[in-house]
């Protein structure tokens, strides 16, 4: 894949005011994009515009502001629907983010599970796609089974086939691993799980910034992501669910917006998507989420993928200059622009602390994926995660900082 000629990173960087700031007197090099992405001026303007011009509660007021806000919020839902190619906009539930989405589904499945049922989670999951299912198992007596990963940070697919059985009711996997960047074979996982009648939830938090997922082509049952990882604000995300599944799930929270009729004897619930959106939602966040998706599409996901892949190859090559480097996970061909690494004999916390002093923002620690760290028998890793607004020059600055950190610590 080639980066289109019209992809101009210098111009793109001008969209991100935060990239001009300094940290500890040095220009900021932001390589913690897998934790949260930066926000372009276009999205910031959208947020300001909402509060300056049409801030109002939605879905109930008859006044002009409320109508405008409702239209913008529902328009955002359509943008999200089209982006992920859902059949209907009512299949898109606006949530507080991926964690909220997963908890919503886990809560709803309590009704359908019984003792002896099995829930399968991949060994590459973030804590947010492990803990809600453990809680569900405690409540229902279902069994949590873990699909193992290999030394290369990929899932053991032959083991997956062995583990699937008629008791498997749910399969949970991330599209892309947050700790290692591995792109998982979700198409295959979905198909095989469906052969046994199991439903599949895909955590798309780490894939949405890099790849465009088509939920109908994937035939996935649930797909979720967070806006703050794709140039949107925090506190908003989406849950896609097939209509018949969302209709079967009970509501997660009770309150305003999610009802049809309320009396003290009996309340009936609203239809989709309102059934799952109790209370005044994050209106501005939803609208800005839509704007962020448009922004990403204006740049083009093919361009983003091609350019980020170049950054990944370059950074990998430069990191391999260190004799004591250990890179965790798979080859660049099977992952997004994330490198999880350590230096032999050095604690990731020490390295992270020193490079921060030099203006480099990388993540250190277990990345909310302690089972993966346990697998590699390490306290954590240093994770550099790149975005389309990063540059090779910034990678050089990181390498210089890492060299300095090595010489100070060794």
């Amino acid at each position, binding site marked *: 894949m080639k980066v289109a000629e019209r992809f101009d990173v210098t111009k793109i960087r001008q969209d991100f005011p935060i990239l001009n700031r300094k940290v500890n007197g040095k220009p900021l090099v932001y390589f913690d994009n897998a934790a949260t992405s930066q926000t372009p001026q276009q999205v910031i303007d959208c947020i300001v515009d909402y509060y300056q011009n049409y801030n109002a509660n939605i879905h109930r007021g008859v006044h002009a502001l409320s109508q405008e806000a409702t239209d913008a919020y529902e328009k955002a839902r359509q943008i999200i629907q089209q982006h992920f190619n859902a059949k209907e906009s009512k299949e898109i539930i606006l949530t507080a983010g991926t964690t909220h989405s997963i908890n919503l589904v886990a809560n709803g499945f309590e009704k359908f599970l019984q003792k002896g049922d099995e829930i399968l989670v991949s060994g590459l999951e973030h804590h947010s796609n492990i803990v809600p299912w453990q809680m569900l198992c405690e409540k229902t007596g279902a069994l949590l089974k873990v699909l193992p990963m290999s030394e290369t940070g990929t899932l053991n697919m032959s083991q997956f086939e062995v583990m699937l059985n008629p008791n498997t009711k749910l399969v949970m996997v991330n599209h892309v691993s947050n700790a290692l960047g591995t792109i998982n074979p979700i198409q295959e996982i979905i198909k095989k799980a469906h052969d046994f009648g199991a439903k599949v939830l895909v955590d798309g938090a780490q894939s949405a910034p890099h790849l465009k997922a088509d939920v109908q082509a994937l035939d996935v049952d649930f797909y979720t992501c967070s806006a703050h990882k794709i140039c949107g604000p925090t506190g908003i995300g989406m849950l896609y669910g097939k209509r018949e599944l969302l209709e079967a799930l009970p509501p997660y929270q009770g309150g305003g917006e999610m009802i049809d009729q309320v009396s003290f004897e009996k309340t009936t619930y609203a239809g989709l998507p309102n059934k799952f959106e109790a209370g005044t939602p994050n209106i501005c966040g939803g609208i800005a989420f839509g704007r962020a998706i448009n922004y990403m599409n204006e740049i083009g996901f093919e361009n983003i993928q091609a350019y980020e892949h170049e950054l990944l190859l370059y950074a990998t090559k430069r990191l391999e200059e260190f004799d004591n480097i250990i890179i965790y996970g798979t080859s660049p061909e099977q992952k997004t622009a994330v490198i999880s690494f350590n230096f032999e004999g050095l*604690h990731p*916390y*020490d390295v992270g602390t020193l490079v921060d*002093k030099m203006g480099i923002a990388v993540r*250190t*620690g*277990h990345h909310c994926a302690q089972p993966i760290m346990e697998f590699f028998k390490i*306290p*954590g890793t240093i994770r550099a995660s790149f975005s389309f607004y990063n540059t090779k020059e910034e990678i050089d600055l990181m390498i210089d900082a890492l060299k300095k950190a090595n010489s*100070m610590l060794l």
Partner: protein
Amino acid sequence: MSNIQQIQEDIVDEFALFDDWMQRYEYMIELGKSLPLIDDKYKTDDYIIKGCQSKVWVHADMKEDKVVFTADSDAIITKGIIAILIRVFSNQRPKDIIEANTDFIDEIGLKEHLSPTRANGLVSMIKQLKMYALGYENKQPQN
């Protein structure tokens, strides 16, 4: 002036000799490398203070009327900071430990290590040192 305060002032004076952050950190790394801080038998979960990223182990003993601390960490910078804290708080009377403030950490340019986001167990460590001191103070016969 209490002994603790005097030591803190000495440390602030020492750090004032450094020109920049690199020299400060190099000094801390040296401190971290050079000190065997704790007996291995205390590097167990019973003595651990869990931070998100680096682990800290602390052990306390009462010798005559003073508390003697030993500690360690798996990260070298954290270990360096521990060495500084031990220098301040170890071999002191429980009452002085409880009453001591830790403003000097800010003055020597290591403030960020006390921020909870650092999650390196240091904030909990200071709390733990004071808890030990409080425990010993309460055990002492009242005058």
